[in-house]
């Protein structure tokens, strides 16, 4: 059983059902790997070893009693943005360094009810604001494909844990690319569902009209398995969509013959690093060989997606993060002179530089005299971008292209200029602005660093995305590549 850590969630599920191994064995093996590798990778903020072993024992006895849930005994890691009852939930911030959540996020609750065993909480950019995991108060995560490289962000800990085989799957969140970009940079599968498909309850809010929970896995099949448990209406999230959850695993085997794949010309212009572009073009050829038809589509307002995002997201963040006041939870400054001083110093000390910049950008674009010029204008451009996608999806079933302009960059390379960092999400942000599902699938390597193929679907097009990705993974083995030191 030396290779338990190489198995996918579905493979582990079958092995547990067949009695080849127990949840306690799987859990112990992965906890051991986390103990040996986390000092090198810094992928975890909290490891919940004892709790995990207890849950594994419980899962094994439930299985023995014939009560195995769909994820019975299967290991999982949660991004530290999800509230976990009686477990530290930091959101990568000094502000919540000591915050022990009094309740579970709906995502956590659903996965737990299905029998999943939480191994720990993954490192992330502070409050999910960052594209390199370097804004985490708990230090940056290292990319297992090259330790001096960033794994991307904000779900860098989740992506690294999956890539380094410390867990088969992890939860993650995506506001502008925070699932898909780190997935691309670590050679994993990142899946962001349609806005409202998965409950945001208990997921610490960054930008509420953009935030969506999803997964990092190594296969599209595992993403489908996870989504089936995570998705669905939740009365506790006022933006949760009331819509039936299909069997996401059911349609994966359907061939791609006749699938119309949209290609956006601007995605392959000068901004895209040449070899990354070549890897993506090769992937498109594979899809073509499987019967897909490539169709050129136009998204004329796409170049405005990054500036639109950097008005809308900070505006919502400035509002959401006003709850951190030093009174009810979170960091509190010592010896405040008065209430105003308590607010200003608690927040000034508790938030890191990037979070403060985003709060201030948001405060500025929402302030009197600027609201129309920035915020309202951005919401109008956002509508134009969404309209472009809507028009494109009349002609195609999915849109395919690169997830990121380059493979992983070195730690420290992009920290000086916020704009350079923001442009990392140039291909992914559109899906968030329009509320569309998107995913990144490993499609090759450039100088031993992974490259991701980005797929975007229409609203509630999860099934077609998962099917395209699964069929692609039947023809390719990029997702099976494992970084040398983590085999």
């Amino acid at each position, binding site marked *: 059983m030396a290779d338990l850590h190489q198995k996918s969630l579905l493979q582990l599920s079958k092995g547990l059902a067949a009695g080849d191994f127990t949840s306690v064995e799987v859990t112990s093996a992965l906890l051991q790997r986390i103990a040996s590798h986390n000092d090198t990778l810094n992928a975890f903020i909290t490891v919940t070893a004892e709790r995990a072993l207890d849950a594994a024992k419980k899962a094994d006895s439930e299985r023995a009693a014939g009560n195995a849930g769909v994820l019975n005994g299967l290991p999982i890691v949660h991004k530290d943005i999800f509230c976990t009852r009686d477990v530290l939930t930091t959101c990568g911030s000094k502000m919540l360094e000591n915050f022990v959540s009094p309740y579970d996020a709906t995502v956590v609750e659903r996965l737990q009810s299905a029998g999943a065993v939480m191994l720990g909480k993954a490192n992330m950019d502070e409050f999910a604001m960052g594209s390199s995991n370097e804004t985490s108060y708990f230090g940056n995560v290292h990319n297992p494909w090259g330790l001096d490289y960033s794994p991307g962000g904000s779900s860098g800990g989740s992506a690294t844990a999956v890539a380094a085989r410390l867990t088969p799957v992890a939860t993650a969140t995506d506001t502008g690319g925070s699932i898909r970009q780190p997935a691309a940079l670590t050679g994993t599968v990142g899946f962001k569902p349609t806005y409202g498909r998965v409950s945001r309850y208990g997921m610490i809010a960054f930008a509420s*009209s953009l935030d969506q929970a999803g997964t990092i896995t190594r296969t599209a099949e595992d993403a489908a398995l996870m989504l089936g448990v995570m998705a669905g209406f939740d009365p506790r999230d006022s933006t949760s969509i009331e819509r039936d959850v299909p069997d996401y695993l059911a349609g994966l085997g359907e061939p791609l013959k006749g699938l119309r794949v949209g290609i956006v010309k601007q995605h392959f212009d000068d901004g895209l690093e040449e070899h990354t572009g070549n890897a993506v073009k090769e992937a498109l050829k594979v899809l073509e060989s499987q019967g897909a038809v490539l169709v050129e589509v136009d998204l004329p307002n796409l170049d*405005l997606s990054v500036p639109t995002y950097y008005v809308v997201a900070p505006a919502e963040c400035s509002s959401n993060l006003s709850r951190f006041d030093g009174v009810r939870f979170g960091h509190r400054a010592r010896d405040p002179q008065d209430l105003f001083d308590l607010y*200003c110093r608690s927040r000034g000390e508790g938030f890191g530089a990037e979070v403060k910049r985003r709060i201030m950008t948001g405060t*500025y674009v929402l302030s009197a005299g600027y609201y129309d010029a920035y915020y309202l204008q951005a*919401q109008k451009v*956002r509508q134009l971008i969404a309209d472009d996608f809507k028009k494109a999806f009349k002609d195609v079933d999915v849109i395919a292209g690169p997830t990121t302009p380059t493979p992983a960059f070195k730690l420290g390379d992009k920290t000086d*200029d*916020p*704009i350079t960092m923001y442009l990392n999400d140039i291909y992914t942000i559109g899906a968030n*602005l329009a509320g569309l599902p998107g995913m990144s699938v490993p499609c090759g390597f450039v100088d031993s660093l992974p490259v991701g193929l980005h797929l975007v679907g229409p609203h509630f097009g999860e099934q077609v995305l998962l099917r395209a990705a699964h069929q692609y993974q039947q023809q390719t083995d990029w997702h099976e590549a494992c970084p040398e030191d983590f085999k």
Partner: protein
Amino acid sequence: MRPLANRAVFFTSKTRARTVSLDKDQVQHIAVLARLKLADDEFAETVDKLSRIVDFVDQLSQASTTDVVPMAHPLHETQRLRADEVTEPNDRDHVQENAAAVADGLYLVPKVIE
């Protein structure tokens, strides 16, 4: 301190290339609105980086958006209302374990009224 609103007139012109960089007073005013105390050594960097961000997002002013209705929800859903019923148990003591200062179930803050 110069009121922020004085600069709004800037945005009536849509064609002029410009930079809208922020100055120290403006950044200080934004920090007060956002209830953020910036340390002296982070202030200069904040002015510089915030200016770059504002310059960057200012390209939105070039987009033609006449007659476009601003997006309110990506799926055009309306806000759902729930029945006015108690659904959550009272978990006050557990919730307040995360607060720095409480007494008798109340949150404590510095004196507001002298």
